[in-house]
Protein backbone atom coordinates (compact mmCIF):
# COMPACT_ATOMS: atom_id res chain seq x y z
CA UNK A 1 0.00 0.00 0.00
CA UNK A 2 1.34 3.45 -0.85
CA UNK A 3 0.79 6.14 1.73
CA UNK A 4 2.13 9.66 1.54
CA UNK A 5 2.54 12.11 4.39
CA UNK A 6 2.24 15.63 3.03
CA UNK A 7 5.40 17.57 3.95
CA UNK A 8 4.55 21.23 4.45
CA UNK A 9 7.86 21.87 6.17
CA UNK A 10 6.15 23.02 9.35
CA UNK A 11 5.28 19.97 11.33
CA UNK A 12 6.40 17.02 13.32
CA UNK A 13 6.31 14.34 10.66
CA UNK A 14 8.57 11.93 12.51
CA UNK A 15 6.12 10.66 15.10
CA UNK A 16 3.28 10.27 12.57
CA UNK A 17 5.53 8.26 10.25
CA UNK A 18 6.76 6.07 13.11
CA UNK A 19 3.19 5.39 14.31
CA UNK A 20 2.17 4.28 10.82
CA UNK A 21 5.26 2.10 10.50
CA UNK A 22 3.98 0.14 13.52
CA UNK A 23 1.16 -1.06 11.23
CA UNK A 24 3.61 -2.26 8.60
CA UNK A 25 3.13 0.80 6.38
CA UNK A 26 6.16 2.47 4.81
CA UNK A 27 5.01 6.08 4.43
CA UNK A 28 6.55 8.39 1.86
CA UNK A 29 7.07 11.92 3.14
CA UNK A 30 6.74 14.30 0.21
CA UNK A 31 5.48 17.66 -1.04
CA UNK A 32 5.30 16.42 -4.64
CA UNK A 33 1.77 16.88 -6.05
CA UNK A 34 1.94 13.93 -8.43
CA UNK A 35 3.09 11.52 -5.76
CA UNK A 36 0.44 12.77 -3.36
CA UNK A 37 -2.29 12.38 -5.99
CA UNK A 38 -1.07 8.89 -6.92
CA UNK A 39 -0.89 7.48 -3.37
CA UNK A 40 -3.52 5.06 -2.12
CA UNK A 41 -3.76 6.98 1.16
CA UNK A 42 -2.78 10.51 2.18
CA UNK A 43 -2.02 11.93 5.63
CA UNK A 44 -2.07 15.69 6.13
CA UNK A 45 -0.27 16.21 9.44
CA UNK A 46 0.80 19.35 11.16
CA UNK A 47 1.77 21.11 14.24
CA UNK A 48 2.00 24.81 13.78
CA UNK A 49 -0.04 27.76 12.70
CA UNK A 50 -2.81 27.58 10.08
CA UNK A 51 -1.75 30.77 8.31
CA UNK A 52 1.83 29.53 7.87
CA UNK A 53 0.60 26.09 6.74
CA UNK A 54 -1.77 27.56 4.11
CA UNK A 55 1.05 29.78 2.84
CA UNK A 56 3.15 26.65 2.45
CA UNK A 57 0.32 24.85 0.62
CA UNK A 58 -0.01 27.78 -1.81
CA UNK A 59 3.78 28.07 -2.27
CA UNK A 60 3.98 24.35 -3.05
CA UNK A 61 0.92 24.63 -5.41
CA UNK A 62 -0.80 21.84 -3.51
CA UNK A 63 -4.24 23.28 -2.80
CA UNK A 64 -5.95 21.89 -5.92
CA UNK A 65 -4.27 18.50 -5.46
CA UNK A 66 -5.43 18.28 -1.84
CA UNK A 67 -8.99 19.42 -2.68
CA UNK A 68 -9.40 16.82 -5.41
CA UNK A 69 -8.17 13.70 -3.55
CA UNK A 70 -10.65 10.81 -3.77
CA UNK A 71 -8.59 8.22 -1.88
CA UNK A 72 -8.75 7.95 1.95
CA UNK A 73 -7.35 11.12 3.53
CA UNK A 74 -6.53 11.72 7.20
CA UNK A 75 -5.88 15.20 8.56
CA UNK A 76 -4.25 15.26 11.98
CA UNK A 77 -4.53 18.22 14.41
CA UNK A 78 -3.69 21.30 12.30
CA UNK A 79 -4.06 19.05 9.26
CA UNK A 80 -7.70 18.51 10.24
CA UNK A 81 -8.29 22.23 10.78
CA UNK A 82 -6.99 22.98 7.28
CA UNK A 83 -9.81 20.82 5.84
CA UNK A 84 -12.39 23.46 6.84
CA UNK A 85 -13.36 26.64 4.98
CA UNK A 86 -11.63 29.17 7.17
CA UNK A 87 -9.73 29.61 10.42
CA UNK A 88 -9.38 32.52 12.81
CA UNK A 89 -5.67 31.64 12.74
CA UNK A 90 -5.30 32.29 8.98
CA UNK A 91 -5.91 35.48 7.01
CA UNK A 92 -7.00 33.71 3.82
CA UNK A 93 -9.24 30.70 3.15
CA UNK A 94 -8.36 27.13 4.13
CA UNK A 95 -8.98 24.10 1.91
CA UNK A 96 -12.79 24.17 2.21
CA UNK A 97 -13.24 20.40 1.86
CA UNK A 98 -15.50 20.24 4.95
CA UNK A 99 -18.01 23.04 5.66
CA UNK A 100 -17.39 25.11 8.76
CA UNK A 101 -14.85 27.32 10.41
CA UNK A 102 -12.12 26.98 12.99
CA UNK A 103 -12.27 29.26 16.01
CA UNK A 104 -9.89 30.13 18.82
CA UNK A 105 -10.53 28.45 22.19
CA UNK A 106 -11.32 30.92 24.97
CA UNK A 107 -9.42 30.39 28.24
CA UNK A 108 -11.40 30.30 31.48
CA UNK A 109 -10.58 29.33 35.08
CA UNK A 110 -9.82 25.56 35.15
CA UNK A 111 -9.75 25.64 31.35
CA UNK A 112 -6.36 26.88 30.20
CA UNK A 113 -5.51 27.30 26.52
CA UNK A 114 -3.89 25.48 24.76
CA UNK A 115 -6.19 22.54 25.51
CA UNK A 116 -3.35 20.21 26.40
CA UNK A 117 -3.64 16.70 27.73
CA UNK A 118 -5.83 13.62 27.69
CA UNK A 119 -9.57 14.25 27.32
CA UNK A 120 -12.47 11.79 27.30
CA UNK A 121 -14.39 11.25 24.11
CA UNK A 122 -18.08 10.90 23.40
CA UNK A 123 -18.28 8.74 20.27
CA UNK A 124 -21.20 8.48 17.82
CA UNK A 125 -19.77 6.21 15.10
CA UNK A 126 -18.38 2.70 15.80
CA UNK A 127 -16.33 2.70 12.58
CA UNK A 128 -13.67 5.01 14.04
CA UNK A 129 -12.26 2.36 16.37
CA UNK A 130 -12.96 4.29 19.56
CA UNK A 131 -15.62 4.08 22.26
CA UNK A 132 -17.26 6.44 24.74
CA UNK A 133 -14.86 7.19 27.57
CA UNK A 134 -11.63 6.60 25.67
CA UNK A 135 -8.94 9.15 26.50
CA UNK A 136 -6.88 10.69 23.70
CA UNK A 137 -4.14 13.34 23.71
CA UNK A 138 -4.92 16.89 22.57
CA UNK A 139 -2.60 19.88 22.13
CA UNK A 140 -4.34 22.77 20.35
CA UNK A 141 -5.57 26.35 20.74
CA UNK A 142 -8.10 26.35 17.86
CA UNK A 143 -10.96 23.99 17.04
CA UNK A 144 -13.67 23.58 14.44
CA UNK A 145 -17.37 23.81 15.26
CA UNK A 146 -19.55 20.74 15.65
CA UNK A 147 -21.23 19.81 12.38
CA UNK A 148 -22.64 16.93 10.37
CA UNK A 149 -19.12 15.47 9.91
CA UNK A 150 -18.49 15.17 13.69
CA UNK A 151 -18.09 11.55 14.85
CA UNK A 152 -16.59 12.10 18.31
CA UNK A 153 -16.10 15.09 20.54
CA UNK A 154 -14.48 16.15 23.81
CA UNK A 155 -15.99 18.70 26.17
CA UNK A 156 -13.83 21.75 26.79
CA UNK A 157 -16.24 24.54 27.60
CA UNK A 158 -17.74 23.90 24.21
CA UNK A 159 -17.93 20.68 22.21
CA UNK A 160 -14.56 20.08 20.58
CA UNK A 161 -14.95 17.82 17.54
CA UNK A 162 -12.25 15.18 18.00
CA UNK A 163 -12.98 13.19 14.86
CA UNK A 164 -14.71 14.27 11.67
CA UNK A 165 -15.61 12.04 8.74
CA UNK A 166 -16.89 13.24 5.38
CA UNK A 167 -16.88 10.61 2.64
CA UNK A 168 -13.22 9.74 2.00
CA UNK A 169 -11.84 12.42 4.30
CA UNK A 170 -11.22 11.83 8.02
CA UNK A 171 -9.82 14.31 10.51
CA UNK A 172 -8.51 13.91 14.07
CA UNK A 173 -8.11 16.99 16.26
CA UNK A 174 -6.14 14.92 18.78
CA UNK A 175 -2.80 13.19 18.16
CA UNK A 176 -3.46 9.49 17.46
CA UNK A 177 0.30 8.87 17.22
CA UNK A 178 0.63 10.03 20.84
CA UNK A 179 -2.60 8.60 22.26
CA UNK A 180 -1.34 5.19 23.31
CA UNK A 181 -3.50 2.17 22.66
CA UNK A 182 -6.63 4.22 21.89
CA UNK A 183 -4.76 6.16 19.22
CA UNK A 184 -3.54 2.92 17.67
CA UNK A 185 -7.13 1.63 17.45
CA UNK A 186 -8.15 4.80 15.62
CA UNK A 187 -5.25 4.56 13.14
CA UNK A 188 -6.08 0.91 12.51
CA UNK A 189 -9.73 1.85 11.82
CA UNK A 190 -8.64 4.50 9.32
CA UNK A 191 -6.22 2.10 7.61
CA UNK A 192 -9.12 -0.40 7.37
CA UNK A 193 -11.57 2.20 6.01
Amino acid at each position, binding site marked *: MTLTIVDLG*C*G*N*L*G*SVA*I*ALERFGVAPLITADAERIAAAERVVLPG*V*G*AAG*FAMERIEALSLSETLRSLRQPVLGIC*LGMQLLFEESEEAAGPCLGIIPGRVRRLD*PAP*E*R*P*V*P*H*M*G*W*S*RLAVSDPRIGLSDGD*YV*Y*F*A*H*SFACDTGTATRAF*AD*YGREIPAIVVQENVWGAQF*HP*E*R*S*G*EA*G*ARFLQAWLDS
Partner: protein
Amino acid sequence: MPARRIIPCLDVKDGRVVKGVQFRDHRDAGDIIEQALRYRDEGADELVFYDIGASPEGRSLDLGWVRRIARVIDIPFTVAGGIRSRDRAAACLDAGADKISINSPALERPALIGEIARDFGSQCVVVGVDSLAVEGDYVVKQYTGSPEATRDAGRRTLDWVREATERGAGEIVLNCMRQDGVRTGYDLAHTRDVVDAVDVPVIASGGAGSPEHFRDAFAEAGVSGALAASVFHDRLIAIPDLKEFLATCGIEMRR
Protein backbone atom coordinates in the same frame (compact mmCIF):
# COMPACT_ATOMS: atom_id res chain seq x y z
CA MET B 1 -9.86 20.50 32.21
CA PRO B 2 -8.57 17.28 30.63
CA ALA B 3 -7.52 14.47 32.97
CA ARG B 4 -4.79 15.82 35.26
CA ARG B 5 -1.41 14.66 34.07
CA ILE B 6 1.20 12.65 35.96
CA ILE B 7 4.56 13.45 34.41
CA PRO B 8 7.77 11.65 35.33
CA CYS B 9 10.79 13.81 34.61
CA LEU B 10 13.93 12.11 33.46
CA ASP B 11 17.07 14.19 33.89
CA VAL B 12 19.56 13.08 31.29
CA LYS B 13 23.33 13.36 31.51
CA ASP B 14 25.69 11.70 29.03
CA GLY B 15 22.81 9.63 27.67
CA ARG B 16 21.80 8.20 31.07
CA VAL B 17 18.97 9.09 33.45
CA VAL B 18 20.29 10.79 36.61
CA LYS B 19 18.79 12.34 39.71
CA GLY B 20 20.25 14.88 42.11
CA VAL B 21 19.03 16.40 45.35
CA GLN B 22 18.40 20.15 45.16
CA PHE B 23 20.04 20.18 41.74
CA ARG B 24 23.33 18.70 43.08
CA ASP B 25 25.11 15.38 43.41
CA HIS B 26 23.69 13.55 40.42
CA ARG B 27 23.58 9.78 40.57
CA ASP B 28 22.77 7.23 37.90
CA ALA B 29 19.09 6.21 37.66
CA GLY B 30 19.09 4.00 34.58
CA ASP B 31 18.90 3.66 30.80
CA ILE B 32 16.71 6.20 28.97
CA ILE B 33 14.74 3.80 26.81
CA GLU B 34 14.16 1.29 29.62
CA GLN B 35 12.91 4.09 31.87
CA ALA B 36 10.73 5.62 29.15
CA LEU B 37 9.04 2.30 28.43
CA ARG B 38 8.60 1.51 32.09
CA TYR B 39 6.79 4.80 32.74
CA ARG B 40 4.66 4.47 29.65
CA ASP B 41 3.60 0.98 30.74
CA GLU B 42 2.81 2.21 34.25
CA GLY B 43 0.42 4.83 32.86
CA ALA B 44 2.46 8.04 32.82
CA ASP B 45 0.54 10.66 30.82
CA GLU B 46 3.60 12.36 29.42
CA LEU B 47 7.35 12.29 29.84
CA VAL B 48 9.89 15.08 30.11
CA PHE B 49 13.56 14.59 29.29
CA TYR B 50 15.96 17.30 30.45
CA ASP B 51 19.56 17.21 29.26
CA ILE B 52 20.72 18.95 32.43
CA GLY B 53 24.29 19.49 31.32
CA ALA B 54 23.44 21.12 27.98
CA SER B 55 22.84 24.75 28.97
CA PRO B 56 25.70 25.09 31.49
CA GLU B 57 28.07 23.40 29.04
CA GLY B 58 26.93 25.75 26.24
CA ARG B 59 25.70 23.00 23.91
CA SER B 60 22.34 21.65 22.73
CA LEU B 61 20.80 18.32 23.60
CA ASP B 62 21.69 15.19 21.67
CA LEU B 63 19.12 14.37 18.96
CA GLY B 64 20.18 10.73 18.95
CA TRP B 65 18.28 9.84 22.10
CA VAL B 66 15.31 12.00 21.04
CA ARG B 67 14.94 9.83 17.92
CA ARG B 68 15.34 6.64 19.95
CA ILE B 69 12.60 7.70 22.37
CA ALA B 70 10.25 8.81 19.57
CA ARG B 71 10.52 5.37 18.03
CA VAL B 72 9.45 3.43 21.12
CA ILE B 73 7.00 5.80 22.84
CA ASP B 74 3.32 6.37 21.96
CA ILE B 75 2.60 9.04 24.56
CA PRO B 76 3.68 12.69 24.31
CA PHE B 77 7.13 13.72 25.40
CA THR B 78 8.98 16.98 25.88
CA VAL B 79 12.69 17.57 25.51
CA ALA B 80 14.80 20.30 27.07
CA GLY B 81 18.39 21.34 27.26
CA GLY B 82 20.24 24.15 25.54
CA ILE B 83 17.70 24.77 22.74
CA ARG B 84 18.87 28.24 21.69
CA SER B 85 17.39 28.76 18.22
CA ARG B 86 14.26 28.27 16.16
CA ASP B 87 16.17 25.83 13.96
CA ARG B 88 17.34 23.73 16.89
CA ALA B 89 13.75 23.54 18.14
CA ALA B 90 12.68 22.47 14.65
CA ALA B 91 15.30 19.70 14.67
CA CYS B 92 13.98 18.39 18.02
CA LEU B 93 10.39 18.38 16.70
CA ASP B 94 11.52 16.68 13.50
CA ALA B 95 13.33 14.06 15.59
CA GLY B 96 9.94 13.21 17.09
CA ALA B 97 9.60 15.32 20.24
CA ASP B 98 6.08 16.70 20.79
CA LYS B 99 7.16 19.77 22.72
CA ILE B 100 10.38 21.57 23.41
CA SER B 101 11.03 23.19 26.75
CA ILE B 102 13.28 26.19 27.05
CA ASN B 103 14.59 27.73 30.25
CA SER B 104 17.95 29.51 30.36
CA PRO B 105 18.00 30.33 26.60
CA ALA B 106 14.57 31.98 26.90
CA LEU B 107 15.96 34.15 29.69
CA GLU B 108 19.00 35.02 27.59
CA ARG B 109 16.85 36.01 24.62
CA PRO B 110 13.07 36.11 25.29
CA ALA B 111 12.26 36.65 21.58
CA LEU B 112 13.19 32.98 21.06
CA ILE B 113 9.81 31.97 22.56
CA GLY B 114 7.88 33.87 19.90
CA GLU B 115 10.12 32.69 17.06
CA ILE B 116 9.36 29.04 17.84
CA ALA B 117 5.65 29.65 18.60
CA ARG B 118 5.14 31.54 15.34
CA ASP B 119 6.28 28.65 13.14
CA PHE B 120 5.25 25.62 15.21
CA GLY B 121 2.45 26.90 17.42
CA SER B 122 2.29 27.68 21.12
CA GLN B 123 1.24 24.12 21.95
CA CYS B 124 4.78 22.87 21.43
CA VAL B 125 6.58 25.62 23.37
CA VAL B 126 7.06 24.98 27.08
CA VAL B 127 8.92 27.47 29.23
CA GLY B 128 10.59 25.98 32.28
CA VAL B 129 11.03 28.34 35.21
CA ASP B 130 13.30 27.68 38.19
CA SER B 131 11.85 29.77 40.98
CA LEU B 132 13.44 30.48 44.34
CA ALA B 133 11.94 32.25 47.38
CA VAL B 134 14.08 35.26 48.29
CA GLU B 135 13.07 37.79 50.94
CA GLY B 136 9.32 37.34 50.63
CA ASP B 137 9.27 37.21 46.82
CA TYR B 138 10.05 34.61 44.19
CA VAL B 139 12.79 35.16 41.64
CA VAL B 140 13.98 33.25 38.62
CA LYS B 141 17.30 31.36 38.62
CA GLN B 142 19.28 30.50 35.52
CA TYR B 143 21.73 27.71 34.52
CA THR B 144 20.52 25.53 37.38
CA GLY B 145 21.83 22.34 35.75
CA SER B 146 25.12 22.86 37.56
CA PRO B 147 25.60 24.47 40.99
CA GLU B 148 28.71 26.40 39.85
CA ALA B 149 26.87 28.00 36.93
CA THR B 150 23.59 28.81 38.72
CA ARG B 151 22.85 32.51 38.96
CA ASP B 152 20.08 35.07 39.31
CA ALA B 153 18.18 35.76 36.12
CA GLY B 154 17.23 39.20 37.43
CA ARG B 155 13.50 38.68 37.09
CA ARG B 156 10.52 38.14 39.40
CA THR B 157 8.85 34.80 38.71
CA LEU B 158 5.34 36.20 38.23
CA ASP B 159 6.59 38.86 35.80
CA TRP B 160 8.52 36.28 33.81
CA VAL B 161 5.68 33.74 33.45
CA ARG B 162 3.36 36.51 32.22
CA GLU B 163 5.93 37.74 29.72
CA ALA B 164 6.71 34.20 28.53
CA THR B 165 3.04 33.42 27.84
CA GLU B 166 2.48 36.77 26.13
CA ARG B 167 5.39 35.89 23.85
CA GLY B 168 3.78 32.56 22.94
CA ALA B 169 4.65 29.94 25.55
CA GLY B 170 1.90 27.30 25.60
CA GLU B 171 2.78 25.76 28.95
CA ILE B 172 4.76 26.66 32.06
CA VAL B 173 6.70 24.14 34.12
CA LEU B 174 7.20 25.79 37.48
CA ASN B 175 10.07 24.29 39.39
CA CYS B 176 10.28 25.51 42.98
CA MET B 177 13.93 25.07 43.86
CA ARG B 178 13.70 24.84 47.64
CA GLN B 179 11.38 21.88 47.12
CA ASP B 180 13.42 20.04 44.53
CA GLY B 181 14.33 16.52 45.54
CA VAL B 182 13.53 17.01 49.23
CA ARG B 183 10.04 15.44 49.10
CA THR B 184 8.27 17.90 51.40
CA GLY B 185 5.52 18.76 48.92
CA TYR B 186 5.02 21.23 46.11
CA ASP B 187 5.05 24.93 46.99
CA LEU B 188 1.27 25.26 46.77
CA ALA B 189 0.84 28.98 47.41
CA HIS B 190 3.45 30.04 44.88
CA THR B 191 2.21 27.51 42.32
CA ARG B 192 -1.38 28.79 42.76
CA ASP B 193 -0.14 32.34 42.14
CA VAL B 194 1.43 31.23 38.87
CA VAL B 195 -1.69 29.29 37.80
CA ASP B 196 -3.76 32.42 38.43
CA ALA B 197 -1.28 34.67 36.60
CA VAL B 198 -1.43 32.91 33.21
CA ASP B 199 -4.03 31.41 30.84
CA VAL B 200 -1.89 28.43 29.78
CA PRO B 201 -1.51 25.07 31.55
CA VAL B 202 0.90 25.07 34.49
CA ILE B 203 2.85 22.01 35.57
CA ALA B 204 4.01 21.79 39.19
CA SER B 205 7.55 20.58 39.75
CA GLY B 206 9.82 20.10 42.72
CA GLY B 207 9.07 18.49 46.07
CA ALA B 208 6.69 15.59 45.49
CA GLY B 209 7.12 13.00 48.23
CA SER B 210 3.69 11.45 48.81
CA PRO B 211 0.40 10.88 46.97
CA GLU B 212 -1.14 13.66 49.09
CA HIS B 213 1.35 16.13 47.64
CA PHE B 214 0.02 15.37 44.15
CA ARG B 215 -3.56 15.68 45.37
CA ASP B 216 -2.83 19.11 46.86
CA ALA B 217 -1.11 20.32 43.68
CA PHE B 218 -4.23 19.49 41.67
CA ALA B 219 -6.95 20.33 44.20
CA GLU B 220 -5.38 23.39 45.85
CA ALA B 221 -2.86 24.84 43.42
CA GLY B 222 -5.02 23.97 40.38
CA VAL B 223 -2.24 22.70 38.13
CA SER B 224 -2.85 20.76 34.91
CA GLY B 225 -0.03 18.34 35.59
CA ALA B 226 2.40 17.35 38.29
CA LEU B 227 5.98 16.48 37.50
CA ALA B 228 8.21 14.39 39.71
CA ALA B 229 11.42 12.42 39.44
CA SER B 230 12.89 10.80 42.53
CA VAL B 231 9.69 9.33 43.96
CA PHE B 232 9.16 7.51 40.68
CA HIS B 233 12.79 6.60 40.01
CA ASP B 234 13.24 5.26 43.55
CA ARG B 235 9.89 3.43 43.33
CA LEU B 236 8.54 5.15 46.42
CA ILE B 237 5.28 5.82 44.56
CA ALA B 238 3.88 3.55 41.84
CA ILE B 239 1.97 5.48 39.16
CA PRO B 240 -1.02 3.07 39.02
CA ASP B 241 -1.47 3.34 42.81
CA LEU B 242 -1.07 7.10 42.66
CA LYS B 243 -3.72 7.43 39.96
CA GLU B 244 -6.07 5.18 41.90
CA PHE B 245 -5.62 7.33 45.01
CA LEU B 246 -6.13 10.60 43.11
CA ALA B 247 -9.25 9.26 41.41
CA THR B 248 -10.75 8.38 44.80
CA CYS B 249 -10.05 12.01 45.79
CA GLY B 250 -12.28 13.11 42.91
CA ILE B 251 -9.45 14.15 40.58
CA GLU B 252 -9.95 13.05 36.98
CA MET B 253 -7.28 10.59 35.87
CA ARG B 254 -6.72 8.72 32.63
CA ARG B 255 -6.47 5.04 33.57
